[in-house]
């Protein structure tokens, strides 16, 4: 069930995954950005877990957990990814002010995150940014829900699509963000933001399994 304890497990698994991938994310960012994505995101999620540990009682809605992530990332991450992820989680939180998510609420969560990233960063698909992962995830989630898939299945399809979306950024030439100053030299390496987006959604799926 995609309830509050799922959301809490999702946070912890994300923090763990980001910690493990810190060096990889930083290396991707060093190639085409300013080399701090792994460090910044790791600092942010560690702060999220600290705040979550200090919470008593547990939040009532999934959206409350996402809002805690949003405000923490905004104040701890800095750079471009702080506001981008902060706004993504904030919009996702607004769409999930319920104790547990059905299929359409999962779609609303992913679409909310996409809207947040797009509203803040003004990027569109194909510009080698995290939008490439979020857009793929939102499309796949909507299609799955339309076919009558369960909430868990919608989430799984969104995550698979985000991973493919992140991989697709490797061949792209960046036209947004600091990577854009490299022009053609930005091709050949995956976008760090799209890569971390895929990690986050993968953690959401693994959090379902852990609850069983």
């Amino acid at each position, binding site marked *: 069930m995609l309830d509050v304890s799922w959301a809490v497990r999702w946070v912890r698994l994300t923090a763990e995954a980001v910690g493990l991938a810190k060096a990889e994310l930083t290396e991707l960012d060093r190639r085409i950005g*300013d080399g701090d994505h792994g460090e*910044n995101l790791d600092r942010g999620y560690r702060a999220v877990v600290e705040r979550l540990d200090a919470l008593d009682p547990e939040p009532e809605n999934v959206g409350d957990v996402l809002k805690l992530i949003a405000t923490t990332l*905004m104040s701890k991450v800095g750079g471009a990814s*702080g*506001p981008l992820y902060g706004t993504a989680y904030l919009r996702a939180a607004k769409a999930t002010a319920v104790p547990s998510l059905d299929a359409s609420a999962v779609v609303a969560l992913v679409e909310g995150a996409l809207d947040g990233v797009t509203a*803040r*960063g003004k990027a569109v698909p194909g510009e080698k940014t995290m939008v490439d992962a979020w857009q793929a995830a939102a499309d796949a989630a909507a299609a799955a829900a339309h076919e009558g898939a369960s909430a868990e299945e919608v989430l799984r399809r969104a995550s698979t699509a985000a991973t493919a979306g992140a991989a697709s950024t490797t061949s792209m030439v960046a036209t947004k963000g600091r990577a854009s100053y490299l022009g053609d030299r930005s091709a050949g390496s995956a976008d760090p933001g799209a890569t971390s987006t895929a990690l986050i959604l993968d953690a959401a799926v693994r959090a379902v399994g852990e609850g069983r």
Partner: protein
Amino acid sequence: MKKLLNDPQNAVTESLEGFTAVHADLVELSLDPTYVTRAGGPVPNKVGLVSGGGSGHEPLHAGFVGDGMLDAAVPGEMFTSPTPDQIQPALEAADSGAGVLAIVKNYTGDVLNFEMAVELAGDDDHRVTTVLVNDDVAVEDSLYTAGRRGVAGTVAVEKIAGAAAARGDDLETVTAVAQRVADNVRTMGVALAPCTVPHVGRPGFELGDDEIEIGIGIHGEPGRRRAPVATADEITDQLLDPVVEDLGLTDGESVLLFVNGMGGTPLSELYVVYRRARSRLEGLGVSVSRSLVGNYVTSLEMQGASVSVLRLDDETTQLWDAPVRTAALHW
């Protein structure tokens, strides 16, 4: 890496503590969240001016807090933009009730974090306008990039808008003046040697003994092209020509010529650059009526310089001349 450092994680805070102790008559430091305000709080009925960005560019921005310039500055980590929870209280602390102008360099992180902070301050009934500075002509095609970066021209925007606020202009007028300066200033920079961010511990890029990087930003990020080292006059021409062309300067116009050091280049060399740039401009029939030379927008210990030209009119000239009393600029 050899630097005067204790724990690199504390470098920004320790530097700010020293800075505010030296200039206690001008500024006050707030910690947690970190921002610098004018000593004594906002001036009644005056529009507040706030700027900020990553640290490592000193004296930008805290060195420009004081009479006739900024009311608050928000320093982020080294080369990392400040966060909204730092920027929002700085905006609010600078608001005497007459509204606040945020001056933001066009770097994606700065733009996004300021945007969020301005929204949050707006929710609390503060009137905040924003002017983006994007003077760096090295970024050729804004259509395929995040746009031209905000670099040394920021000093001119902060000085002139600060003077407009000090003479009592309202928020709309101060914003329009700041925008006019941003629209009329262009910059191009060169690096002779890279810089090292303390907690990273290695240079941001590599340059051979006989190489220079033309068209750098202020974070040691790549520029327009790598070129062989040349004479000061030749390098100056490579910086000035695209600036003049982009501004579309014509015979009879009057300008401010600003030669800015990146932190590791001696003043004596900056004057050599100034000498050439001035004579080129005068050769075009352009009158260099105001000048500034020194290390104002630095990139840690980077060796290099930038050349900025601001097209002046009577009003912006007067505002440039108006009194200013800050740590880094005073007359």
